[in-house]
């Protein structure tokens, strides 16, 4: 449970602030650690954002003690994902204006 909640928030922060663990340079068919200018066209950051989110989720799941996660309100489990969806829609509204 904690993994998912932390991972969703980390993913949102990752694409907002370009915290990509690695990037895939399409033209070169190569992976680079972190975001850097490969000089060969726009890279794919999505895989890296996902990896950053998995790390964030794993860290959250390890850090939060089980007695605290057991007290987690059931509604937060769906309200937080709903909030990150709204954040994604707000972030991407730039394409529709």
């Amino acid at each position: 449970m904690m993994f998912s909640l932390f991972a969703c928030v980390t993913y949102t922060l990752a694409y907002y602030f370009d915290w990509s663990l690695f990037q895939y340079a399409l033209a070169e068919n190569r992976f680079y650690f972190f975001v850097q200018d490969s000089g060969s066209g726009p890279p794919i950051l999505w895989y890296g954002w996902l990896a950053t989110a998995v790390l964030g989720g794993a860290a959250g799941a390890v850090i939060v003690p089980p007695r605290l996660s057991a007290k987690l309100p059931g509604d937060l489990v769906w309200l937080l994902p709903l909030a990150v969806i709204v954040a994604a829609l707000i972030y991407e509204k730039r394409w529709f204006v």
Partner: protein
Amino acid sequence: MITALLLVHGILAVVLLGAITHQAFAASATRPGAGRSSFIAKFRNTDAASYSKVVVALFVAIIFLGSVLYPSYRLVVRPLLQAQDLRAANGSFEIKEHFSALALLLLPAYWATWRQPLTPEYASARVGLTWILASMVWWNFIIGQLLVSIKGLFL
């Protein structure tokens, strides 16, 4: 090869769409078994918990295939959208990207809420998460189908 993967991706998406929509309606049924004669009641009157394993397996398979296909989208489709200034189509796919990632990351929570025996304290989370995932699947499916057909539809 890419065409074959795209077809498999699409077919699995249809199965997931059916499974998670069915589960979402069944999960939010207030009185299971009531009014069994109508189609809607029959549609909702199913064991929602039995869908969770299939839903998780389908999600993982579809997102894996999607991530394999993604570089082809970036090489072939996205430049076309940019050249034609189809910003809304481009943005819709960006949202699809985020929804796919968020859905994948939410699967452990979804799995936990549907784990047997079902716990009453996660009742609202179960229904809420299932509807959230179902909405993402519907968006991704519709946008995916529109983008695959975009040349015939809009260009």
